[in-house]
């Protein structure tokens, strides 16, 4: 069938400026740029990843929307019609990448942070110490002490394993396979430098990264790719992946295009086959079964590592999180509906799940109400865009936040949403060796470290203005938040007062 899809973008080349260096031809990984006697773009193949635009030394290239490809209609958007055409031509499920881009309310932007004035003076973080250190893991219900004969006081309570974070930001789970080894290397190095953690995602851990074990969360997902006892023990923490914010309730298929020899070895599946992660873990059909897997991992790691359980933010998230904590998890990671993905059916990504702000508030409140909040740390994922979002998340009850998309943007990602094609021009979501080489892990690590440093400084500024000197003092302190433009029920769910209301 010949395709009737109009091009989504138009690539404009200013031939007066172009000096025919062909750099755009070499840089385009989607095959859009051809060279005859001059550069000729094949508009239909352009995904607006901006690689050619960035690397054109003459700035001779601009990419624009193909404005009137579809006649204007407030009800039938160009995207809606484009999707119908695609499905009429293929009969397939629409596949997409990255997080939910739709115009749902972003509640972070309806929350405002308090500050000190006159009484309870603010603190200047440039001169006074600010504590961003966080420990993830189960905290005891109470502390007991014993006094020895010589009068020394010792802690009698046995403390469960804890992981120290110097900044309350961990990198999101992105599997080796979905992203390149250059990305994993960048994340691991940056995590080590910043005193935080990267997360393997579900594709196992490349042997080259074993030296970074103290800064790695290893994931166990339904496909059990690359999971063995050595892998479990090469970590600071083990995470059971139940769900992902971008695709709650469904499994994953890493397209065969991305399964090369190295991925095949790490995942133990044939080269070129799709890496299939079933929707559920087939040994987990209940909270009791989840508990069984948590303790299987604890047995295999000699009870030395905290175990996290990651779920997507869905309607019943608070009750599920309560079950997870009671099942023995030391950390609960909640992934909101804005969370990213390497590949997901568009209909799921854009329509399933709930915002992380509401999920986080509900989970924190539920665990407090049940008196088990200390039994697990809460990690908030899926939609953290800046340090302001992070501060608000901590005030809503998070122990730490996750950045996935933000980390990739720092590495060069332009959010073109074509991760599933394996053609990422920026060397991020690809396994093509000539593209992977484009991302230098040393440079990547530096960019990520800079981002974490910047956000840490900003978080300290916020803490200082609040008149507190540690994130412990902000955690769960919803009194320091106010809502703006929110209905009363949403305010109630978030546990915050409307702006304008005092103490």
């Amino acid at each position, binding site marked *: 069938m010949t395709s009737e899809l109009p091009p989504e973008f138009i690539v404009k080349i200013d031939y007066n400026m172009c000096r025919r260096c062909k750099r755009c031809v070499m840089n385009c990984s989607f095959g859009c740029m051809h060279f005859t006697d001059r550069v000729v773009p094949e508009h239909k193949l352009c995904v607006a990843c901006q690689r050619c635009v960035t690397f054109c030394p003459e700035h001779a290239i601009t990419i624009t929307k193909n404005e009137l490809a579809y006649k204007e209609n407030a009800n039938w958007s160009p995207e809606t019609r484009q999707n119908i055409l695609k499905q009429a031509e293929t009969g397939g499920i629409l596949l997409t990448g990255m997080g939910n881009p739709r115009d749902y309310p972003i509640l972070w932007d309806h929350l405002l942070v308090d500050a000190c004035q006159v009484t309870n003076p603010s603190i200047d973080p440039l001169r006074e110490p600010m504590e961003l250190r966080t420990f993830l893991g189960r905290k005891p219900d109470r502390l007991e002490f014993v006094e020895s004969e010589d009068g020394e006081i010792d802690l009698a309570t046995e403390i469960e394993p804890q992981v120290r974070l110097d900044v309350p930001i961990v990198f999101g789970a992105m599997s080796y396979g979905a992203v390149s080894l250059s990305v994993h290397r960048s994340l691991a190095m940056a995590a080590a430098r910043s005193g935080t953690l990267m997360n393997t995602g579900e594709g196992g851990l490349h042997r080259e990264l074993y030296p970074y074990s103290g800064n790695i969360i290893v994931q166990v997902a339904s496909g059990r790719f690359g999971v063995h*006892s050595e892998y479990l023990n090469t970590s600071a923490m083990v995470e059971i992946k139940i769900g992902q914010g971008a695709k709650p309730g469904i499994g994953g298929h890493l397209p065969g295009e991305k399964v090369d020899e190295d991925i095949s070895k790490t995942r133990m599946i044939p080269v070129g086959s799709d890496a299939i992660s079933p929707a559920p873990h087939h*040994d987990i059909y209940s909270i009791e079964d989840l508990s069984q897997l948590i303790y299987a991992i604890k047995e295999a790691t000699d009870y030395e590592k905290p175990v996290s359980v990651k779920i997507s933010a869905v309607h019943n998230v608070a009750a599920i999180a309560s079950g997870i904590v009671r099942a023995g998890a030391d950390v609960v990671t909640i992934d909101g509906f804005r969370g990213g993905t390497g590949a997901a059916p568009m209909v799921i990504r854009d329509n399933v799940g709930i915002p992380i702000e509401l999920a986080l508030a509900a989970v924190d409140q539920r665990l407090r109400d049940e008196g088990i909040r200390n039994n697990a740390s809460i990690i908030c994922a899926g939609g953290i865009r800046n340090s302001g979002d992070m501060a608000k998340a901590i005030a809503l009850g998070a122990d730490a936040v996750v950045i996935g998309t933000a980390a990739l943007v720092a590495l060069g990602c332009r959010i073109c949403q074509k991760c599933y094609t394996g053609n990422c021009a920026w060397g991020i979501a690809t396994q093509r060796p000539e593209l992977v080489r484009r991302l230098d892990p040393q440079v990547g690590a530096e960019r990520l470290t800079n981002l974490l440093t910047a956000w840490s400084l900003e978080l300290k500024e916020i803490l200082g203005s609040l008149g507190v000197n540690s994130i412990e003092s902000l955690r769960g302190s919803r009194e320091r938040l106010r809502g703006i433009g929110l209905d009363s029920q949403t305010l109630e769910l978030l546990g915050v007062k409307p702006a304008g209301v005092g103490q």
Partner: protein
Amino acid sequence: MKMVMRIDCKGLYYRKQNKIIRNAAEEGETEFILDNVNGQRYIGSGIEKKIKITVNGVPGNDLAMFMNGPTIIVNANAQDGVANTMNAGEVIVHGSAGDVIGYGMRGGKLYVKGDVGYRAGIHAKEYKKQVPIIIAGGVAGDFCGEYMAGGILVLLGLNRGEGVPIAGNYLGTGMHGGVIYIRGEVDEYTLGKEVSVLQLDSKDMKVLTKHLKEYCEHFELDLDEIMSEPFVKLQPVSSRPYGSLYAY
């Protein structure tokens, strides 16, 4: 000569029991006999040493999970999740086993004398010479070999009642690697749509005979009698069963 370490597991909490085994193995103990086992979970879980554990009684779920080297002999039935995500070693069950045995199995051998439950061998994997092998002497439940990406799964269907099928429905559904050998015939309607039935070639016969010989030695069965009935093999039609599912 080293003594065998004998542990009376009656009333012993699994965590304590497994700790004793792990610690003793670290100190060089190589052989264990566990008596009066009654549902203790995770026996052999995550152990990297080449020890031998004999289990007298019924072990609990996730026997040999993440195991990497030991040999476990169970002189009774076993429960769910035997050899879950196991990497290397051997598990020999002188009885039947429960559901999801060999889930995500990456290597080693799992020999079950009797029947196995639902989703046996689900998502088994392989890489080059590291190929897990599961042999069940009896019949299997539904979704046997689901999502298999590698490995060898053999069903013998011995000692089954009149009219009892050798495997349940959706046999090999979602399979995209590995092979299943079935002794006798298999009804087409029970198959997942990602597999096809093929005849064995000489290479298959060599592989199958090698593993069945070992299997027969464990359970004192007659290899010739087992091989007297023809086998069929199931293999995935495509390594990308869902390749055309999506609109790009």
